């Protein structure tokens, strides 16, 4: 099977509010995909649906042929939009937790990245700045040898230098058959590393193209096109 993720006509409704409406999307293996949309466009809802934190109102999501659940969690490495780790734990403890939880967790890689970002594994999460916490979370997620990485706003709170390192980490750590889906609105920072972009607006997919197709056809960067499509 060549697609790691297949969505068929997925709709999610919260009460009277439609968060996602008829989303059909196929994402192949070995790609880095940007899920781009303004605030409240449905990016996080989509990612949560893929991780079984929400269930679709209608439609179907298949990851490697399975609906989101125990089997898919083994192969999907998910970076949530918020910090869910226990504040009182030390980084080393959390690494132990991840090692126990995920058979594909590469401890050595995690320690290596911590060292490069100058984070002390003996520090408690509580004592860290927001940006450092984000880095720790991303390190944990990227240290798994997963088939699908879903990163919800991975670079929002970190400074530009660390951002470069993180993008570098993403590029050097994912294997060729793995797919990475990154949701963000910091487009200019990441567009060079993306294969494809998916524009999502008010719960609907409005465009799916490769970065170079967009540049070729419009003579604009993805960032400029985004500003046009989502002009307020």
């Amino acid at each position, binding site marked *: 099977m060549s697609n790691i993720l297949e969505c068929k006509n997925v709709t999610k409704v919260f009460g009277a509010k439609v968060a996602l409406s008829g989303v059909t999307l196929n994402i192949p293996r*070995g*790609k*880095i995909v940007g899920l781009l949309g303004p605030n409240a466009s449905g990016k996080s809802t989509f990612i949560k649906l893929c991780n079984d934190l929400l269930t679709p109102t209608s439609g179907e999501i298949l990851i490697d042929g399975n609906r989101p659940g125990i089997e898919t969690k083994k192969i999907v490495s998910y970076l949530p939009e918020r910090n869910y780790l226990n504040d009182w734990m030390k980084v080393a403890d959390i690494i132990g937790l991840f090692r126990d939880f995920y058979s594909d967790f590469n401890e050595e890689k995690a320690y290596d990245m911590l060292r490069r970002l100058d984070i002390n594994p003996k520090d408690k999460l509580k004592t860290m700045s927001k940006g450092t916490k984000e880095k720790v979370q991303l390190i944990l997620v990227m240290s798994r040898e997963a088939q699908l990485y879903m990163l919800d706003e991975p670079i929002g709170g970190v400074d530009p230098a660390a951002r*470069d390192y993180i*993008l*570098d980490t993403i*590029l*050097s750590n994912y294997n*060729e058959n793995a797919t990475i889906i990154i949701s963000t609105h910091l487009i*200019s920072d990441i*567009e*060079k*590393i*993306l*294969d494809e972009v998916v524009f999502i607006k008010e719960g609907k997919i409005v465009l799916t193209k490769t*970065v*170079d197709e967009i*540049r*070729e056809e419009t*003579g*604009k*960067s993805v*960032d*400029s096109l985004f500003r046009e499509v989502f002009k307020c």
Partner: protein
Amino acid sequence: MPWELKSDRPIYSQLIEQIELRICSGVYPLGSKLPSVRDLAQEAAVNPNTMQRALAKLEEDGLLYSNRTSGRFVTEDVNMVKQVKNKLAQEHVQVFLKKMKELGFDYNEILSIITTIAEEMKQ
């Protein structure tokens, strides 16, 4: 040599130009082995698939060749590199001339400006 990628043109074609430039200027000498796709992609901070596509095109053009077991190499054909050099020079000059015309200079004025500046730079 840093990788310079502009935001309004396809990344793939810019990578091709930048690699051509590196071959012409001897950063990647004739017959030498290129770094791996992954390393190049990381160096340029671009998607590995995009880098792969650029390298495949350069291979198709004959400027690179790959050896199944040992990687990708720069051609040893001096004439081919000369051709690429000429092509790059042509493109640069065309852009330059277009801009100078926009500034309102005619052909003779442009030539005399070039001569003057070249003299100045010599000193």
